[in-house]
């Protein structure tokens, strides 16, 4: 199929539209009270980028401290707070809402050919809940801080000083924002697909977001009640998690991981969603194994609920439970593997071009594979007993979350940026930044695999002198990462200041979102689209107009 390079590109609407979603109404109120999914997506995007900056600054402080063993420019107590804030901010304020709430909100209705999500006001409510929860979390940070780690393990979290209660309340509220987003997306996918958009005609992005939403709906309420119980334990000493009072701290871990393991799939599935879109476009090939990728998303959603015990191999849970959880953990690697091989098969003999979104997608493939395979190592019961709570776990987690989700988020951000803002960014600087981020990431975290396997425990303020060279190496990597992100911030900001220059379909992609103008009009499409072909028919020999007017 590699010989077929001509694309069935959709007819471009006139460019750029004079009135679009960004300028149809003006003023701060028109944004704060909007129900347009695109504006809500943009506000989410700005918020999570701020959270990413905040979490990133905390990460830089942690790495800077670890440059040397022993006392440093921050005390051990401050260090505990900083790494807790890094984890909590990155996970609850940035990664979980990143792709679904920011990019998903913007592109999902466009991909389905809908005018909006099913419940626009609920969508706005979810943003307000996110802001409220984040605000509480910020207040908690400046009034006392939290030093429990992002996992809030009892009994330490119920007895330590500081603003744990406020932080927990903030996360509880953010949880509801996540639930509302999930409910909204599922109803939208079920009821608002354009004529001709059958289930098997949907972009794989939508399938993955669907699977994500299921997890959000089923897992997040359990986190909610867990955090409420933690709050009650702190306020009233109700006894459920405190062994002194006859409670069970391991029950907290079960509750917490019943949410938080599926939650890592809330984080990675949307990443996989973006990759499934980007790779066929820049390989100029039909996606390989469409149904296998769709089914594997659903399989991940299902199996993700059965593996939480692999976080607790050394918690004292029964040997049988550990063995079963270990086995189930291997099982969840299968659907992830199916996806990776399908993406590779998509690229095979394609005409690959290396624009910024594709560079990040390829980074994702490399880094997520390493992250996934080290996950298998950690899921192996006897190995985990040794590697538990070492930098090996830290490195694995960052390979999956940053190497996986963040790379995919960046791929998606660069892929849809022209659609969102109607402007192209500097491709040259984007490539420089992608290279810096890829290399910087590996310098930072590959070294941590070595540190961990040599026995460096996670979350420690101090360490033996023998670990210093690797720590220094890792900290250098974090500076490269920071430089890469600063360059990105600069060229994205510059692109926003120039006049709109993006065509409706800069990448020659086939998704419905590219048939709308860049930026789209408030109602997304001039007419209700009629879908006549699949979203990945890049190998189709005959040019077919992607859309025909319907509903006239």
């Amino acid at each position, binding site marked *: 199929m590699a010989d077929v390079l001509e694309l069935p590109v959709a007819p471009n609407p006139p460019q750029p539209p004079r009135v679009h979603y960004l300028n149809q109404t003006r003023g701060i109120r028109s944004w704060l009270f909007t129900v347009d999914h695109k504006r809500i997506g943009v506000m989410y995007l700005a918020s999570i980028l701020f959270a990413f900056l905040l979490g990133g600054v905390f990460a830089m402080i942690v790495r800077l401290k670890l440059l040397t063993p022993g006392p440093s420019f921050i005390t051990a107590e401050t260090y505990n707070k900083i790494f807790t804030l890094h984890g909590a901010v990155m996970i609850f304020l940035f990664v979980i809402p990143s792709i679904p709430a920011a990019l998903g909100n913007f592109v999902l209705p466009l991909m389905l050919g809908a005018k909006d999500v099913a419940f626009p006001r609920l969508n706005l409510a979810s943003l307000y809940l996110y802001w409220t929860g984040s605000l509480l979390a910020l207040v908690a940070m400046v009034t006392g801080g939290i030093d429990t780690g992002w996992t809030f393990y009892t009994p330490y979290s119920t007895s330590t000083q500081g603003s744990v209660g406020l932080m927990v309340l903030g996360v509880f509220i953010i949880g509801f924002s996540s*639930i509302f987003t999930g409910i909204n997306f599922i109803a939208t996918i079920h009821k608002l697909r354009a004529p001709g958009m059958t289930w098997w005609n949907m972009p794989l992005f939508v399938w993955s977001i669907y699977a994500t939403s299921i997890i959000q709906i089923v897992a997040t*309420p*359990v986190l909610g009640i867990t955090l409420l119980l933690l709050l009650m334990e702190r306020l009233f000493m109700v006894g459920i998690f405190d062994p002194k009072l006859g409670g*069970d701290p391991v029950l907290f871990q079960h509750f917490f991981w019943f949410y938080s393991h599926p939650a890592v799939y809330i984080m990675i599935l949307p990443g996989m969603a973006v990759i499934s879109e980007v790779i066929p476009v820049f390989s100029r090939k039909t996606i390989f194994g469409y149904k296998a990728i769709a089914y594997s998303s659903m399989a991940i959603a299902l199996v993700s609920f059965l593996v939480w015990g692999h976080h607790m191999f050394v918690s004292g849970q029964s040997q049988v439970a550990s063995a079963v959880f270990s086995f189930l953990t291997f099982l969840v690697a299968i659907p992830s593997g199916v996806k990776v091989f399908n993406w590779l098969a998509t690229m095979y003999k394609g005409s690959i071009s290396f624009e910024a979104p594709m560079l990040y997608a390829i980074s994702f493939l490399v880094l997520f594979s390493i992250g996934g395979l080290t996950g298998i190592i950690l899921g192996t019961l006897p190995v985990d007993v040794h590697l538990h709570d070492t930098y090996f776990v830290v490195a694995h987690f960052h390979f999956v979350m940053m190497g996986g989700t963040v790379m995919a988020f960046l791929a998606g951000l660069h892929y849809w940026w022209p659609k969102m803002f109607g402007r192209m960014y500097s491709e040259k600087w984007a490539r420089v930044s992608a290279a810096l981020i890829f290399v910087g990431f590996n310098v930072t975290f590959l070294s941590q695999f070595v540190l961990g396997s040599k026995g460096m425990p996670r979350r420690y303020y101090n360490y033996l002198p023998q670990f210093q060279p690797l720590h220094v190496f890792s900290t250098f990597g974090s500076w490269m990462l920071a430089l890469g992100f600063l360059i990105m911030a600069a060229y994205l900001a510059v692109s926003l200041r120039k006049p709109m220059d993006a065509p409706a379909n800069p990448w020659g992609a086939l998704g419905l979102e590219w048939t709308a103008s860049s930026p789209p009009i408030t109602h997304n499409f001039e007419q209700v689209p009629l879908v006549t072909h699949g979203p990945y028919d890049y190998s189709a020999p005959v040019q077919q107009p992607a859309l025909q007017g319907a509903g006239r």
Partner: protein
Amino acid sequence: MSDQVVAAGHEPYLQHHFAKPEQQADASKIGMWLFLVTEILLFGGLFVGFALMQSRHPLAFLEAHKQLDKTLGFINTLVLLTSSFTMVMAVHSVRHDRRRQAIAFLALTLVFAGAFLGVKYIEYAHKFHEGLLPGRFYSHPGDTVPGQFMFFSFYFMMTGLHGFHIIAGMVLIAWLIRRTARGDFSAQYYTPVDLVGLYWHLVDMIWIYLFPLLYLIR
């Protein structure tokens, strides 16, 4: 479906991004059912915690539950069941365009919900008086088995969260009464009544599980 059709004003309740009223109603129902799933999981955590702690401290839970008033609990169960019936009748009425009847049934539901909270207030007042309070505030004299405070931790957390849902339901029902009186609903469009009905039944169902769990141990 273009905006002009909506603007023509035949279906003022139809939001612009839906093509047909049925599509909008279906979407709302999907949303509500998903929300109810999250509610069940929210309470599910408490049920699991209760089951585990009861299995750890069976005697304490057995002794402690004797402090609860089975009669009041039973009356409240009947009250809530009846309120579910009046809610069903309210949905039925609005579906048949009997607006005044619908308002009457909604008002009755509101009265029963208030009665439930009234009985709950009597029970809570009694517990407070006896020092049967959650966690560290527990100060009941003459306990024979240690650890009884934990039963009351759960009693207050579970009935408290349930009571919060009752109050939320009452606010929603009051809102429905106002909208029904205003003439927002008809046989063609009554989705909010339907959905609040679903929510109200779930809140009743949770009580139906809470009653035997807390009041009728063994």
